[in-house]
């Protein structure tokens, strides 16, 4: 099993990063760190996805000198998918940060638990 994990080292690291991002997301109460955790989680997924496309000894999928045999190039599909993913995750980051700014403007703290408590108190006031 360890041998298999070592051979798939990219995916192994991606999975570990996914777990770390997940734990940061759950444990950190600071919103900014939570967002960083989310970003780590999504990049880990992209690393996992991109490692599916790599094939030893082949080149990036850009046609050079008119060579179009499939055995010369790596798989372009994961690259395209990850490209989409990166752009999606930057839009989410922007949106989460905007929410953070608004929450800070209102409650003057970044601690999500305290913010929730204050909102709760506001409700009954």
């Amino acid at each position, binding site marked *: *099993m360890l041998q*298999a*994990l070592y*051979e*798939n*080292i*990219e*995916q*192994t690291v991606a*999975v*570990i990063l*996914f*777990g*770390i991002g*997940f*734990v940061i997301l*759950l*444990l950190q109460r600071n919103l900014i760190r939570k967002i960083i955790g989310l970003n780590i989680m999504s990049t880990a997924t992209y690393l996992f996805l991109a*490692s*599916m*496309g*790599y*094939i*030893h000894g082949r080149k*990036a*999928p*850009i*046609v050079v000198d008119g060579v*179009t*045999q*499939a*055995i010369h*190039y790596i*798989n*372009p*599909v*994961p*690259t*395209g998918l990850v*490209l*989409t993913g*990166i*752009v*999606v995750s930057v*839009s*989410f980051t*922007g*949106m989460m*940060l*905007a*929410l953070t*700014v*608004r929450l800070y403007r209102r409650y003057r703290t970044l601690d999500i638990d305290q913010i929730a*408590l204050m909102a*709760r*108190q506001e*409700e*009954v*006031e």
Partner: protein
Amino acid sequence: MSKRRSDWQNRPQERFVRWMREGYLALDEAIEDSVIQPGEAPPEVDPELAAQHQEAALQHRHDRDLALDRLAQYDLYAWTLTKGRRLIGRLHVLLSLLLGGMIIFFLLGTVAHMPRFGAADVPANNEVITRYIEQGLAETGATNMVAGMILDYRAFDTLGESTVLFIAACAVLILLRIDLDDKGQPTQQLIAEESDDRHYEPKNDRILQGTAILLTPILLLFGLYVILNGHLSPGGGFSGGAIVSSGLILYLNAFGFKKAGRFFSYKTFQLVSFGALGFYGVAKAYSFYCGANGLESHIPLGTPGAILSGGLIMPLNIAVGLVVACTMYIFYALFRKGGL
């Protein structure tokens, strides 16, 4: 009437509800009874006083209601913040670590069973890929197969992706944009934001401005190069747009909103994103419609490798680049001071 009401209250269903609400309903009733006292507002009092009385009664009831709520909700929360805080904190840490560990463990077990990294015989390396690579140049006219794939073969995904950016920009606009008031004058909040924005910054930083003068044109040119060569070399609309927007952000930082506002206002954002996304949508709609109905689309593919080649890919890259640049710039401007 009161007898009927008490009968109704004694029904099992009502009693169950009362039990569920831990007796607060009974308190509600008590308040209600204390508020409604028929004899209290005699009919001959002048109507204004009666209205005041009624309003006071409503307010009183509302206040009592809130007080009860505060009691009900604050109890548990107060406990979690004081005595229960450490216990809950520890429990949370323990559970999170356990969950994270379990996720890592299970996924590692999965990774060990996944196809070998870098092998040529993985399932992902199938006939789909072969056609993308071997026919891609002839069918899309793009040397960069990734660009050909995301903007021609799987263009619908990319349309969705540009829409994600657009909708995120709109959502951030909802959250952070501070509107002018009805007369078109800046509101108090906007002025406060602006002064807050200048808080740490010298107004005209010579070093920053000098660097910006030097770097902005280079960044813009490089961004344009990346966008325009998207079908020939790595890059394309997304990365090029981000580079262009970083040039714009640098300019904005060095010279302030007034100067940047001369060429980029909210109107510009609206028009550019409308134009670019509209063009993207219409162009792709035409191509999808032709493709699905078996019509010829009459879009020349050009000589592969030349700058004017790849059919719709270059215009689409430009559209995507514009959307990305606008979105990123407006993100930045909105974060800075809630407007452009």
